[in-house]
């Protein structure tokens, strides 16, 4: 897509064209597009002088990167120790059944991608989850619907 190309130029311009910039470039691109398209990875490899297999290694090693398109919103359920002890499994079950997705998957309407993360560092407010950049603490299965609705509503108003 021409848009993606422009955005990649912009990101590549922020860093010096050397192998050590690889992770920073991938992070910015992931943030912008919510995934790393194959063509972009190829161009990044050429520009930074990193062999393609190494770029692929990095892009698949770190959890922050995704090679497939993600939903409009990312729901990160915290699986830290405090959240585990406080029963976050239930929240995850409920979330998966409400959105009809499995962990790592995206809901059919393309709204939400469900992931787990260890950990959000909100341990005193366990169980916690983060949608995009908003953190929710002491989440109960009852509140879950309301929390998700805020994001769907936001879209309808767009």
């Amino acid at each position, binding site marked *: 897509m021409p848009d993606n190309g422009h955005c990649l130029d912009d990101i590549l311009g922020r860093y010096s064209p050397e192998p050590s910039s690889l992770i920073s470039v991938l992070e910015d691109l992931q943030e912008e597009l919510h995934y790393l398209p194959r063509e972009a990875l190829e161009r990044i490899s050429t520009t930074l002088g990193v062999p393609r297999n190494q770029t692929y290694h990095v892009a698949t090693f*770190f959890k922050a990167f995704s090679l497939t398109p993600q939903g409009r919103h990312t729901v990160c359920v915290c699986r830290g120790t405090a959240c585990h002890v406080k029963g976050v499994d239930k929240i995850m079950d409920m979330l998966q059944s409400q959105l009809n997705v499995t962990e790592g998957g995206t809901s059919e309407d393309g709204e939400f991608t469900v992931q787990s993360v260890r950990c959000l560092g909100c341990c005193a407010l366990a169980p916690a989850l983060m949608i995009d950049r908003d*953190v929710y603490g002491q989440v109960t299965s009852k509140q879950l619907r309301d929390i998700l609705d805020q994001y769907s509503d936001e879209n309808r108003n767009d």
Partner: protein
Amino acid sequence: MKTGTIETPRQLAAVRSSARKALLNGHPRIFVGTATCGLATGAQKVLDALHEEAGKASSMRISISETGCNGACFLEPLVDVVLPGQARITYGHVQPEDASGLIEAACAGTVYKKRIIGRIDKEEFLVEGTSKSYRRGKLTGDVKEVPRYAALPFFRDQVHLAMRNCGIIDPTSLDEYIAKGGYAAAAKALTEMTPDQVVDEITRSGLRGRGGGGFPTGRKWATCRKAPGEPKYVICNADEGDPGAYMDRSVIEGDPHSVIEGMIIGSYAVGAHTGYIYVRQEYPLAVKRLRFALKQAEEAGFLGENILGSGHSFTVRINRGAGAFVCGESTALMASLEGRVGEPRAKYIHTVEHGLWNKPSCLNNVETWNNVPVVIARGADWYASIGTQGSKGTKVFSLVGKANRVGLVEVPMGITLRQVVEDIGGGVPEGESLKAVQTGGPSGGCIPAELFDTPVDYESLTALGSMMGSGGMIVMDSRTCMVDVARYFLSFLKEESCGKCVPCREGTSRMLQILTRICEGKGRPGDVELLHDLAQGMTDGSLCALGGSAANPVLSTLKYFAEEYRAHIEERKCPAKVCRALITYSINPEVCTGCMLCLRACPVKAITGERKKPHIIDKLACTKCGLCADTCRSNAIEVA
């Protein structure tokens, strides 16, 4: 007021003196705790409401700022009000509806009658060892009745060194940091001490790494200083990966300049001119606060060329982690800084000699860097007077899990686990019994309640088969299954093992397999012995410390909770009623009111029944998620 460039210690002193006047005098000030934990409980709405109400009450000038978290996360959202000439008063669980009352009371110089937590009587200048009372003249009756912090069980035994400014100052205000004595330690180190004197001071203070290993900081600095090779690097490890620990996030969000100041001092001591902060991308607010603080420090001249006229130059870059636990390991972190995958290497070659880009590199954790200015400003002897023989100073713990009062607590080393969990944390909810506390994250272990009189220091925790780690302290009660906890940690470690060495990659997989089958009631005789064997292999053969300590959660639970393993394997029972395969849910028909709430809540439609008649759970369809029990208002759902 905007701080211009500060070129000499004398200019710094002038800025400090005027900033301090602004801090202590004048109009009422309101602080809202907007660290991530505050925001997660609605602090932004409270802040907005306060701004709106303050706009209406234009008769008096009130300043409203954001602040970090003072550790009392269980009371979030927190609001502090400084009443001039009186005291600083903390309110907890504040809602937007409280805004008008808070503003009204602040204007009138009185106490808002609701949601009172406690009061602080003086502004502490910890790095100077001085304080100044807010009070001028008599305390009004209202204020006098507010309990002092020192009388509150949560704060009574705490000593805030690392958290000295958290929840007190506005983290986006360089002036406030300077007013509290900030950058004075850097000025002292860079202009009055030689690098060797700085290293010596840190060594004599007994400061040890707060990230996990507990390596003596002074010794690390001394080796890096002597190591041949240029340039040298200092690195701040803010990749706080231990699940259950979040003090680094809180310190960065609440007091970012303290970390930068520590790094400036360290760079001078080891002879480095470039620094890196490697911070988790899961902490967006911490990244934002750091970026802002770095810009301020650059503009003020604390970073750049010829810092404070000393001739020393130093710059700092931020790198974000990309979500890999193993990158908290120093060699993996450095690989990641170089743009490669975060795989550790063998450490017979030390990173202080051959680290980032094969150059001498001095890596410390956030809390360690943050302690450095205190050590330099107050002196090694003062610092070493706190704590125990082998563990000096204080440590911040994230006291979380089933405790009644959860949050970040900073205590002197040597305090007992019981004091932390029971006195500060208030024990576990009524009706449950305290079972264990997990310390040290995935490299640590579970310590049973019988051993709670153990002092908290590096050696004592290691002797129990756990470790200090980065300071997670997860409280567990009778409803926590210890086999499930061991399985949880192994699932974490299996997922996070980088895969480079076989003992860790295969060991964590096999251990998880065995623990999973035990939790599913398919444990076999000999499984416990097999776990011991695997643990030995991983401990001996793994490449890095993370693999070498990966068996600790299993070994410690096997040691202290053998009975629970036996119940799972031999009786196919989970005493804590956690392991889903070993429990059943049913509805007590005597108690069920037939309200249909559980029927609607069940995600797999395993509950049937009619209104006002007892419902029934289809045990074959039930996935044992427990949502029905959460929904039931009459406690009719029974777990066996």
